């Protein structure tokens, strides 16, 4: 093949190579979220209350224990699962019973879930129970929220910071 023709062929192929890299580096665009949608993220890492209440040891029980283990309270390690319900305008978006982590089931219950929802004003209600010893929901938060398109609303739970958090 004549050299000029070969060089032209090389130029075309290098250009094709560069064009392929350049194009797929940014195209096609990906529509991750529809223009009229917002995102709800429900996530927490919370240790439920102890599944069974602590029990006070009797004097006889304490006497049977080695001196360094004579704790007055006997607290079982296992924690309650955390029950959570999230409703939007009265419709249940999520309802879950999150078990405690750990082999002894004594770790925190953890949850991470995301939901694409229509943007606009909504009535958001979140209810949580972190103890099997108490019926119903212990924590409740319900309020009107304005979700702009593309907004991420994080629903977290931390009793130490006020319970159910909308961030």
């Amino acid at each position: 093949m004549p050299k000029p023709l070969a060089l032209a062929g090389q130029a075309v192929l290098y250009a094709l190579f560069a064009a392929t890299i350049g194009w797929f580096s940014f195209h096609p665009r990906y529509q991750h979220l529809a223009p009229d949608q917002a995102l709800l993220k429900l996530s927490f890492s919370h240790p439920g209350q102890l599944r069974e209440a602590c029990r006070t040891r009797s004097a006889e029980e304490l006497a049977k224990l080695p001196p360094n283990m004579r704790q007055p309270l006997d607290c079982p390690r296992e924690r309650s699962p955390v029950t959570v319900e999230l409703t939007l305008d009265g419709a249940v978006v999520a309802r879950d019973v999150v078990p405690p982590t750990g082999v002894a089931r004594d770790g925190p219950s953890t949850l991470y879930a995301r939901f694409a929802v229509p943007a606009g004003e909504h009535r958001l209600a979140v209810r949580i129970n972190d103890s099997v010893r108490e019926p119903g929901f212990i924590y409740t938060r319900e309020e009107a929220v304005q979700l702009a398109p593309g907004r991420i609303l994080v629903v977290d739970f931390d009793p130490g910071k006020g319970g159910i958090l909308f961030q």
Partner: protein
Amino acid sequence: MCAHSVSSPLPAAPARPLRDALERLEAAFDRWFGAHANPLRHLGALGFFLFWIVVASGVYVYALYDTSVAGAYASVQGLSQNQPWAGGLMRSLHRYASDAFVLVVVLHIACELVRGRYTGFRWFTWVSGVPLLWLALGSGVIGFWLVWDDVAQFSAAATLEWLDALGLFGEPLARNVLTADSVDDRFFSLLAFLHIGLPLLLLLGMWVHIQRLSRPDTQPQRTLGWGTLAALVVLSLAAPVVSQAPADLARAPQVLALDWFYLAPHVLMYETSAATLWIVAAAVTLLLAACPALPHAPRAAVAVVDPANCNGCSRCFADCPYGAITMDAHPDARVGARMAVVAPELCAGCGICAGACPSATPFRSIRELASGIDMPQLTIGALRERLRSELARLRGATRVVVFGCDHGADVRGLQDGNTAAMSLLCAGQLPPAFVEYALRRGADGVLVVACAEDGCAFRQGERWTEERLRGQREPYLRERVPARAWRLVKAGRQDAGRVREELASLRAGLRAGTHDRGAMHA
């Protein structure tokens, strides 16, 4: 009348039409680039080259990177805005070379699959390449996070959600990018550590990947290297990489300009599920890793050393393309004497070692020719016997012996009354003295047909053959052999027509210069 061929076939190629198409494409690229600068023949070398471009440009970018929540975005975007001809160019080069790396690696895998080069003695090289895919993708994906823009936010959340789907972590990893308060400066220090550490592991893996190759092809020919670099620089200047909007964990990016080379798995996950992506990733990994176990042709017999004929010259050791030969003490206990030792698990059965052996010359007067190192499926002695019987058969004015290669252009169809066609395991199996021997024993000409330039099925057979015949590599073809009496053709399986033309041309030359032949026949 049939030509001689006793070698084993190629490892099972999964799709013969695909292989034919690839070889045609390679031949077309040869015409434009030349074989030495043909990117399709040097994808591995191109991968190494792109890796070093990424490293060099990455060092510059990292020197100016701010590993903090507040500074990460601004420091990267500042490269593009404040120093477009230096930092901006380096940033773009870093990105585009990384993208090109993925493209080249995928092509490298596809081409080797189509060529059937994943079984037998190649299993280690193939399998050791599989983890490199994970390391390359991991290195790249984390690089996107460092920019801390919309794409970074999307990719970080997607990756961590994907990892969480395994259920192995006590607390969801995705909570690390849940709100602005979740992200701190240490997060970026960790990312920088991973973005340096994973490529270092990748480099280590690349080194392991080529351990079973002698003289691995890790540097592209100069024009290919400069051409690739120039293409990436032009692209970087024409379409400089810029950041998208800064990451904002209270706002979800809606339309994203994704880098599909690295981030396509995120899209698959959101369009299906995290479990689907795990299944696809695991399936691809396992299928690739299991390729060597797929049904394939029986492994070729390996080279055998004959201590009585091995003088420890080391030529086979120097020429073996797969490092299957080592030199050890000779069992005859002469002080300092050495002998070749073949590692069977590394041997490709190509016979290049036999072609390098000085004791493989057919001029030896022993009744049964035995070489210091030889191939059981086609010994040098058997080759000499066949050559003798073929020479006795040849008639006509221009009697030509054709030595071909089982993996190159098929020479068996050339067999006729005045042509003897013999196909070897590899053209590199041919000791150059056989050319002279054929001419002295009655042939008027010899045509040696090797694989296409840089297209040897055993990496270096066509190169060693040429160097030996041209007197540049031991064992030499003696200078007294007239040049017009022999010819070397490098031809792939698609080039049978060209081989016929070369044969006709050789014959025409022989007819025109009979005085040279007389000297050889003496």
